[in-house]
């Protein structure tokens, strides 16, 4: 079945565990639909061509640029945004570490960094500083010079390791 280019088609997106039914044209970016139709404005939109990393969310558990995905592709999929991280009123390990290490200034890039690096830390529970820097290269921050973000990710890794021990 072909969805017509100018037809608004109904979709269900499961965002942070809650189903949202929206009607959108195929060309609508997932980043825009999350913000404009689902009201989840924590996902920030920077470059809209996959370079800056600000709009990174989890699609079925894996990090992805929401600007490089069309919402129509995600019918029925489970999506996690930054709003899922402190839903219980408590910051996540990485959010807390970013707070303590002064790992943000304007905060625009922070949601993408939290979504990317928390997933990355699951794959890399014992990270090196070099590994953290390589992974962070996919998220552009123009304020901090990265040093405090690197410190925060390393600190969160230690914290998470302690939790598991």
């Amino acid at each position, binding site marked *: *079945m*072909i*969805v*017509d*280019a*100018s037809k608004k088609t109904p979709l269900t997106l499961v965002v942070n565990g809650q189903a949202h039914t929206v009607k959108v*044209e*195929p*060309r609508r*970016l997932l980043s*825009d639909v999350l913000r404009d139709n689902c009201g989840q404005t924590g996902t920030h939109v920077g*470059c*809209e*061509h*996959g370079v800056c*990393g600000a709009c*990174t969310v989890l*699609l079925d558990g*894996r*990090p*992805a*640029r929401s*600007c*490089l*995905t*069309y919402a*129509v*592709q995600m*019918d029925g999929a489970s999506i996690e945004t930054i709003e899922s991280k402190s839903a219980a009123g408590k910051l996540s390990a990485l959010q807390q570490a970013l707070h303590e290490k002064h790992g943000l200034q304007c905060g625009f890039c922070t949601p993408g960094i939290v979504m*990317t690096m928390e*997933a*990355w830390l699951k794959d890399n529970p014992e990270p090196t500083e070099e590994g953290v*820097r*390589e*992974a962070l*290269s*996919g*998220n552009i921050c123009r304020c901090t010079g990265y040093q405090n973000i690197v410190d925060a990710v390393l600190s969160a890794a230690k914290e998470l390791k302690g939790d598991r021990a």
Partner: protein
Amino acid sequence: MKPARFAYASPATLPEALSLLAGHEDARIIAGGQSLVPMMNMRIAQPELLVDINRIEGLSGVRFDGDHLVIGTLTRHADLAANGLVREHAPILAHAASTIGHYAIRQRGTIGGSLSHADPAAQLPLIGMLLDAEIEVKSTGGERTIPAVEFFEALFTTTLEPGEMVVSIRVPVLPNGHGWGFNLFNRRSGDFAEVNAAALVLGQGAETSVRLALGAVVSAPVRVDDMLPPFNEANSAWAAEAAKVVAAETPVEPNARIPEDYRREILQALVESTLFDAMRRS
């Protein structure tokens, strides 16, 4: 940066996808979308119909058929890099996949997408050329197998016919004791390479053969084995001498951003370290 309007289909089976491709002249397949979507968002690409193959079962994963790895077109770069069979039988492929773009990009991007997109600076076309991979394609009219050396034609151009889709990639397994090297040069981590190089050292003693492939120097990846001077294990300066020859003789396409002599300098250093890595690992 919003794309132009397009129609969308998400077929559940491969035959449905192929008939959608056959029935629409301006249809494009979307797999991971990590190259196509930026081009659509910038309106460099404006397909009328997107055929999304992500819901088709059986297009991803790696199997071993005795002398080849058979890699499904929808296999994501992160899965390719982590796959035990690939790490065992074609470690250079796993390593190269782990260097593509960024962590989040590798979770979505696919091998079939990278090969079909045919960016001359991309990792997987280069490694496909080096390993003599074969690309298996299907259309409503049938199927055929295209050797990598006949697949990449020019910038973003392959020998795929309209209506054809890459379904899998066959990679000959590498023998025990082979040595490999892969290096890329870029100015920012995750960018496309300004030059990349991959090498294999196969066999031993007088039987040793060396393969070398280069990317981003001309409009498609190239094999330059013939340029290499005869391999001489005893000569510790062999890699340096070979790199000098390759850097001088390889055709380098003009690039407004990067002066030719600078690119040749990078090429020489990169080829030397890549050949050296391959010898060290053999």
